[in-house]
């Protein structure tokens, strides 16, 4: 079994217009910059993107939005040090935004990957973000019904991966990546190191290979935070 793909370009080549794409990362940590840039090069339009944020500066997700490829964003916190790209497009009515509380976003993705179509959470009960959602009482407390979330593709960043798709992460760059890996029809992982099957301790595998379809070796991946301090722009 060999899920490795030679280039990021090959890995994302079949993502079509209109696809729903989950993109890992929290701010810049764990953001698969090289896969996102390959997606910019590939050029599909009208994407729905699921990410915690809305990008920062002019690289990664912000650049994907700047290229006009994103029709809708599902996120919890579209603010950053430099959210100009998203903010201007949003205020001009050029992009749809679905705001989801961060824990609900994570749980919706986890539910999507786990075959749970809906669940109840106390989060957002009585707030504007619960508007239109079913509510129910359990044991004297009120809860909001939220739906599982799935995607056509997930672009994630991992630290080590083997050809079977088993993955480990690096520190807080783990964040949304493992849950998004479970919730997409096709999960594409960029990994800083490719190792042989058997080299990862089965005790320490965070994402088992069953959730991963393609593994791309991206040594020395770029970090959004550093790119933005350099005022980098993509493309």
């Amino acid at each position, binding site marked *: 079994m060999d899920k490795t793909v030679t280039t990021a370009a090959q890995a994302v080549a079949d993502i079509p217009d209109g696809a729903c794409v989950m993109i890992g990362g929290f701010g810049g940590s764990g953001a698969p910059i090289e896969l996102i840039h390959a997606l910019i090069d590939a050029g599909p339009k009208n994407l729905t993107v699921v990410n915690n944020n809305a990008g920062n500066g002019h690289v990664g997700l912000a650049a994907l939005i700047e290229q006009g490829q994103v029709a809708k964003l599902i996120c919890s916190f579209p603010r950053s040090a430099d959210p100009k790209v998203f903010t201007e497009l949003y205020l001009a009515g050029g992009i749809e935004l679905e705001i989801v509380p961060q824990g609900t976003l994570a749980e919706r993705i986890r539910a999507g990957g786990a075959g749970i179509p809906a669940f109840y959470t106390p989060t957002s009960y009585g707030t504007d973000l619960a508007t239109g959602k079913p509510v129910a009482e359990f044991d004297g407390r009120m809860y909001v019904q939220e739906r599982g979330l799935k995607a056509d593709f997930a672009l994630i960043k991992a630290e080590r991966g083997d050809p079977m798709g088993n993955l480990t992460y690096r520190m807080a760059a783990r964040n949304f990546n493992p849950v998004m890996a479970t919730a997409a029809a096709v999960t594409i992982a960029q990994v800083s190191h490719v190792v042989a099957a058997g080299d990862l301790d*089965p005790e320490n595998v965070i994402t088992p290979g069953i959730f991963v379809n393609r593994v791309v070796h991206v040594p020395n991946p770029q970090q959004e935070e550093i790119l933005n301090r350099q005022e980098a722009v993509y493309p």
Partner: protein
Amino acid sequence: MSLDLNDIQLSNAQIAWRAAQDIADGAYVNLGIGFPEMVAKFQPEGREAVFHTENGVLGFGRAPDAGDEDWDLINAGKKAITLNPGAAFFHHADSFAMVRGGHLDVAILGAYEVAQNGDLANWSTGRGGVPAVGGAMDLVHGAKRVAVITDHVTKKGAPKLVEACNLPLTGVGCVTRVYTSLCVVDVTGGRFVLREKLAAVSLEDLQSVTGAELHRDGDVGELVVPEL
């Protein structure tokens, strides 16, 4: 009936062999406790399936030699196993996220009865005693393909392929293919469609030991398995 099933029907190993031929290279597979576990033995040369067990292992291999068992390394049937390279451990909720979330390519299970609409009964004989369901109800609604391996009839000769299950259901409309000791049947559009049968059994005799109508959709292939 002119047919003596005992003379012609496949052994369990042969049924398992036939089911194994439909497992694609790279497939993620869960095999039910007991008879279905035998399917792993018959992976075709050159194909590599990855086996999942509900208790939190992906990529396990053969049983260890007697005396080499580590009882922290077992499968859902509580039998000792070994690991293949690229294996991973995970907890029970993550394990059933794999199952329920549609990540397994195929689950192969045993059956008391399969109905022509795909209903499966394999967890309870409905006769009292201690009920026990395990992971069967999760598997039937999770794997992309749910196949059954079974003798064609019960030990008493009653059909196991039926119009509607009499026993308590494990799942509704979940089975898509049945490998029996006499034939291979697909469940499609609420009907049994015969795909392969042993040359030694006539269509009429096969129908006579089947509890629901066997339809045809194109040629019926010959069910050929090696001596095992």
